[in-house]
């Protein structure tokens, strides 16, 4: 049997390889997403003081360290049986909202947009952020750099560093926010809400306005009915920081809603010997193989899943977009994997609105943002929505607070089975007997995983190296570089 390997897969975080096996007729017999990496956090967190885990587990991912930091801090709260003060929780959520804006913006503009704006078959040298800028204009490029910069500067201000910030700790936040800082954040938050709206308009024009892309989004190779998971607040609206985990079935009916400490009743993980990553599935439905549908325990936890699992968004502009998306795509739930990109930008808007809302909260500059942990520690679970999916941290400690057991179900891990199915579907749908397997075709297979934004939003910029296009961009407007550095951070 002939094997085609895409090695490594690119424009994502982490290492991966896709092995496509063709039978004698040239049809795809199967396609495997092989994950060759493992670091072993579940083991080496054992013996560590639990309060150090937020800073340690942040190193699971350098693009979404905030997700691990906050999930870990929440798990530690649970281990010590406490709730941070109200201002502490709000400050954590404010910090978290800024991070969400930054992360989703990075993924949409740098990883995803090239496929839609340049086209999936475009020359790989142009299929990157610089190609995007050349097509939609320098002003857009400048806006994207400014959006990332503003959001990341909020993270830096509140968390000490832009990569691996540290201030979410057991009991709350290690430092309150001053009024001066709040004013800066408010200014950026307003700008970012506008940026969220701008992004939606761009998507309308460039993606939804292009029939070819709309057909691609709605096509069978990119459609997969599964269960959908996301955190919801007490009104079943999307919330990234806190709430209950809600799962709906492929018809959109609520299947279960569970609290963090109940996760083991609902989620199980499967081991396959040909990959280092495990496959989570819904325990009560069971593992039925790499298939979708109501009888299979495969579920998805992505921006689209969050919107599918919720009844709405908690902020007005995002809610209007939410309604428009479902109206356009024919109701809930939406099974088209590529629509995840749309859901993601609705979440950018929500995150920016939520950031502004929290910035205006009268409590937000309160000095009382943390509680001292005094109880004897035992066990706890902390769950947040990472940009890539529901993130679960579960710790068991001894009475000294040293970790005895650490279990982690990470955002992208939730989606390993569905990504595998999506890749196989895309490969089978696109690679047919007699058809030349071109680079562009393989890239379309990769588009199947990119929609999930696997683990890392990767580079803010993708650099082609030697294209005249790149040089022209810089040369054509002499001072361009300086103009793009409007936002000096």
């Amino acid at each position, binding site marked *: 049997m002939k094997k085609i390997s895409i090695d*490594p897969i*690119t424009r994502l975080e982490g290492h991966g390889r896709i092995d496509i096996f063709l039978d004698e007729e040239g049809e795809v017999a199967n396609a495997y997403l092989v994950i060759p*990496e493992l670091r072993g956090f579940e083991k080496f967190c054992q013996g560590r003081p639990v309060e150090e885990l937020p800073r340690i587990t942040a190193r699971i*991912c350098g693009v979404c360290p905030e997700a691990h930091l906050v999930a870990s801090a929440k798990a530690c709260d649970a281990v010590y049986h406490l709730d941070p003060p109200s201002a502490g929780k709000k400050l954590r959520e404010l910090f978290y909202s800024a991070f969400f804006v930054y992360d989703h913006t990075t993924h949409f503009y740098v990883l995803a947009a090239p496929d839609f704006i340049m086209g999936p078959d475009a020359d790989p040298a142009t299929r990157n952020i610089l190609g995007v800028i050349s097509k939609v204009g320098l002003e857009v490029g400048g806006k994207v750099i400014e959006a990332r910069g503003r959001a990341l500067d909020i993270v830096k201000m509140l968390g000490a*560093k832009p990569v691996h910030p540290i201030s979410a700790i057991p009991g709350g936040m290690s430092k309150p926010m001053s009024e001066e800082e709040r004013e800066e954040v408010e200014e950026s938050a307003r700008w970012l809400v506008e940026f969220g709206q701008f992004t939606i308009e761009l998507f309308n024009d460039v993606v939804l306005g292009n029939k070819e892309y709309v057909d691609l989004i709605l096509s069978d190779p990119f459609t997969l009915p599964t269960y959908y998971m996301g955190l919801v607040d007490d009104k079943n609206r999307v919330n990234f920081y806190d709430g209950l985990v809600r799962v709906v079935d492929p018809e959109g009916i609520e299947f279960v809603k569970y609290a963090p400490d109940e996760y*083991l009743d609902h989620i199980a993980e499967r*081991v396959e010997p040909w*990959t280092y990553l495990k496959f989570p599935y819904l325990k009560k439905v069971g593992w039925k193989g790499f298939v979708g549908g109501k009888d299979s325990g495969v579920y998805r936890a992505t921006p689209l899943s969050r919107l599918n699992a919720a009844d709405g968004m908690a902020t007005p502009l995002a809610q209007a977009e939410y309604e428009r998306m479902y109206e356009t795509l024919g109701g809930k739930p939406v099974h088209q994997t590529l629509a995840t990109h749309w859901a993601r930008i609705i979440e950018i808007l929500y995150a920016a609105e939520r950031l502004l809302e929290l910035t205006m909260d009268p409590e937000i500059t309160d000095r009382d943002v943390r509680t001292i942990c005094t109880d004897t520690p035992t066990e706890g679970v902390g769950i947040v929505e990472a940009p890539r999916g529901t993130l679960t941290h579960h710790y068991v400690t001894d009475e000294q607070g040293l970790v005895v057991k650490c279990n982690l179900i990470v955002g992208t891990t939730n989606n390993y089975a569905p990504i595998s199915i999506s890749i196989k579907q895309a490969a089978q749908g696109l690679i047919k007997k007699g058809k030349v397997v071109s680079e562009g075709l393989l890239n379309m297979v990769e588009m199947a995983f990119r929609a999930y934004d696997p683990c890392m939003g990767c580079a803010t910029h993708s650099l082609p190296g030697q294209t005249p296009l790149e040089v022209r961009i810089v040369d054509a407007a002499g001072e361009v570089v300086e103009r793009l550095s409007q936002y000096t951070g």
Partner: protein
Amino acid sequence: MMAGKPRVAFYWAASCGGCDIATLEIREKILDLAQAVDIVFWPVAMDIKYKDVEAMEDGSIDVCFFNGAIRNAENEHMARLLRAKSKVLVAYGSCAHEGCIPGLANLSDREGIFEAVYKESPSTENPDGLVPQTRYELPEGEVEIPAFYDTVRTLGQTVEVDYFVPGCPPQADQTWAVFEAFVSGDLPPLGSVIGAGEKTVCDECERVKEEKKVKEFFRIHEIIPDEKKCLLEQGIVCAGPATRSGCGALCPTVNLPCRGCYGPPPGVVDQGAKLLSAIASVVDADTEEEARRIVSQIVDPIGTFYRFGLPASLLRRRKIQ
């Protein structure tokens, strides 16, 4: 200097991706960089594949910035490959420099890690006790995955490294200074640490330092420290005294102690031992009994003193009986 534009590569081994994001924290300056050099390999950002690197001539990459630790056979293969293809190899970031957080896995071994991840995990259903195999026969064909080693190694323990840039991750101003140094050619002798200071974090920290006499140690969740005074003086273990400067002492600005991610200060071989010595020396005890009582409040010496540098330490790993 270099004929034509310098050819630059970026690669990541066992890493979290933070060093690639950190590289991009030079923000709009990335465009200056893209103008000044040709980036010939950067899997996270570009579609150049491993086979393309293998096809390059030896020494045809002028500088390779390699982040991530050496955890498995693929990491080692790429370290050797990029060493051969590069004139200058830079260990960028704490993982490549001294093992960093993944290095804590040296407190265990492959078996211990596999047991925890694939068998003992409470959410894992694995009745047959399966673990990943380097070669596995699927119905359609064979799939290979890289061998997972017992011990995490640094880049320098695997191949000859020309320069080390410390930090988890390196801060943006330091990264830019490193790029400028390469472009201008103004570099210290091979084997040097670059992109960092020559003192300790205490030197950069703005907190007020008076006298260090510690009668009690507090863990970070047990105390709300004064925002202006030295954290160590308040009984919070801080790695500042034994950590190289260069980061700007950021962590103490949010009331949390340094944990040592910039590695040992100049002249220090084993950061953890030096830090242990520094911390113990300020214990305010006049009897062995009192000293024991106070230091027993430091609950995880190896994980605290060697948080980022276990593979690079003298002993490198725990002995598993």
